[in-house]
């Protein structure tokens, strides 16, 4: 076993512990620098990096993301919308809610209908307009048939924040309240259902959307101490990362975590926890206790935040761990291991 050559597996791409270990080993150990002008370096493994500009002219936030998804077009969105929203949201998670520019790099499989790519590009245009995030440069490569699955998109984003005005994901302190901006699990459960060919009644669809405007409203209303968008690995992974990076415990009331009826039912049938799967239009925020109600109200008044709720708080005990009150008893909420696969027998 141990003498086998180590290879990258799908589990390395699932967004939790194994992926972080791989990034630490492959990238952080090589690219880390001790540049004093970097407020959030690569080693922080946050949603983006933050670099101070000269003469107190604010800080520049840089983030990048590659997107592959099956199917390319799904209920509620498509890979183009995902690519733009994903990068806009990563900038927003650092506090950069007004993106300066995005890039668009396409890798296309030979044989892909032009119409398919056109549909994706049109969706990117619409989403970039919606987010106020202009796409200003890009690249296109074509690979042989079978060398890539139809289409992959890389988007890089640049934003500006006032110096020191960025929001890290490691900033929680005991007493901070945790707010989730809407129902969780919609993207992941919807995609899994579609991939497995389950046609659930009801309105299961992805929540993919840019959330920069929503985040701006929240930041205007009070002190945001930490922020993360619970994409791969879901809310469970984001909460564990936030707890572990800040060295605090988190106590979460499962009953207050918003989950739509359709997602809850489909999750039960598939044997998948909605808290463990990706969201593409939701945010989890740490908020200073005294500002929590004001921030919640601001979020709820935003069209994307009607279902927002305070789901728990940071505590001194159980550093690095997340405790879930299920409404019956308590258990640890752990990060999901690897890809979430539907229960079969």
């Amino acid at each position: 076993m141990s003498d086998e050559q180590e290879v990258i597996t799908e589990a390395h791409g699932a967004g939790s512990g194994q992926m972080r270990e791989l990034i630490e080993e492959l990238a952080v150990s090589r690219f880390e620098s001790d540049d004093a002008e970097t407020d959030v370096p690569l080693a922080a493994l946050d949603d983006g990096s933050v670099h101070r500009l000269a003469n107190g002219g604010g800080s520049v936030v840089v983030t990048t993301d590659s997107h592959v998804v099956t199917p390319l077009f799904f209920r509620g969105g498509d890979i183009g919308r995902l690519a733009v929203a994903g990068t806009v949201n990563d900038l927003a998670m650092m506090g950069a809610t007004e993106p300066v520019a995005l890039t668009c790099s396409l890798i296309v499989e030979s044989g892909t209908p032009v119409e398919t790519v056109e549909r994706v590009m049109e969706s990117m245009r619409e989403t970039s307009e919606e987010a106020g995030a202009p796409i200003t440069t890009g690249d296109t490569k074509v690979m042989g048939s079978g060398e890539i699955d139809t289409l992959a998109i890389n988007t890089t984003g640049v934003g500006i924040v006032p110096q020191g005005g960025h929001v890290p994901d490691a900033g929680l302190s005991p007493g901070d309240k945790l707010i989730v901006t809407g129902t969780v699990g919609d993207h992941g459960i919807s995609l899994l259902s579609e991939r497995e060919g389950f046609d659930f009644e009801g309105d299961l669809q992805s929540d993919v959307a840019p959330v920069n405007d929503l985040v701006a409203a929240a930041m205007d209303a009070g002190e945001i101490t930490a922020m993360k968008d619970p994409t791969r690995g879901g809310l469970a992974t984001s909460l564990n990362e936030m707890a572990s990076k800040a060295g605090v415990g988190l106590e979460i009331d499962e009953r207050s975590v918003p989950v739509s009826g359709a997602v809850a039912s489909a999750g039960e049938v598939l044997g998948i926890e909605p808290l463990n799967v990706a969201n593409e239009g939701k945010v989890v925020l740490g908020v200073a206790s005294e500002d929590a109600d004001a921030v919640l109200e601001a979020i709820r008044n935003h069209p994307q935040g009607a279902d927002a709720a305070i789901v728990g708080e940071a505590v001194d005990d159980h550093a690095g761990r997340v405790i879930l009150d299920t409404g019956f008893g308590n258990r640890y909420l752990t990060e999901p291991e690897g890809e979430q696969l539907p229960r079969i027998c």
Partner: protein
Amino acid sequence: MAVESGEPDLQFRDPEKAEQLTDRLEALMDDIGERVTIMHVCGSHEQAIAKYGLRSLLPDGLTIRMGPGCPVCVTDMPEVDEAVALAEDGKIVATYGDMLRVPGTEKSLDDAKADGADVRVVYSASEAAEIAEEEPEREVVFFATGFETTAAPTAAVLTADPPENFSILSAHKYVPPAMEVVAELPDTDVDGFLAAGHAATITGYGLFEEFVEDYEVPTVVGGFEPIDILFGLAKLLEFIRDDEPGLANAYQRCVSEEGNVPAKETMWDVFETTTGEWRGIAQIPEANLVLREEYRQYDARERFDIDVDTASSNPLTEECLCGEIMAGKADPDDCDLFGEECTPQDPVGACMVSSEGPCKIWLEYGGQPDI
């Protein structure tokens, strides 16, 4: 979690009722005045207990242990080896998805698939028979695993005149004899059994009368919602307090005394019991299900003369505590491999493979809470 729309919360997820039942458990434990260990024999019970954090509600002195309740976990290595051998020999092997990663002596079905074998995931025995119908030129073998709940549907497919190119490799197992073995184990100190509700849906709760009489262990058939489980535990503690080895059905909405008689009859028409190995536990008399003479033409073992070499074994498996865990003697986090060398991505023991496996469940839901 807050459910925004759709079905209303069902009554058996009522936290108030749970609190009343927890108080009842406290009171019963006070009356009993000594430690009590309950064993359940069903992965779905473990899943519900872990998912809803029920262990954190239990009064001091009340322990719930997992028994041999996951069919994937107790499928023996040579049985997996047989399936792998058939797949590598060019047969289409169809099985439940949970079986794919179960390690055999050398490799799993997933490994065989990666090497080019035709291994397919199905949701039922009938789906496997459909593959045989669609591919009449190929031999299709259904690697049939599971307890009474899946054995009965497998039997139904065989009685419905399946295609000639269809056969089954039976690793079906029958739960009651395993409970007898656990009840007899010298180090297993089980004061009561929470029996599996869905197996009893087929066999009926009356089946356990003899078991309770012979072993004098209170037994309650329980469902899988949090209230079902707490209610089942309360019934067990009542029996234990009254020193009465009784039998109760705490899952009346699904389980009757006789069970599903036609399904049961079909199952016994097709299968008979034989002694066989339950992985990590022991040879269990009359607990493996094999095809009766009348159905032998569908037996892949007869048809293909499978010869597996089981001489070598993975040395890591000797450190694996799956056997101890399923015998109720250890918890998953007692195992040195748990979550380190043994993970769902790279399982050493079968308890880490299936969503019904105790180790996988403990890893997913955070194990024994000290909260």
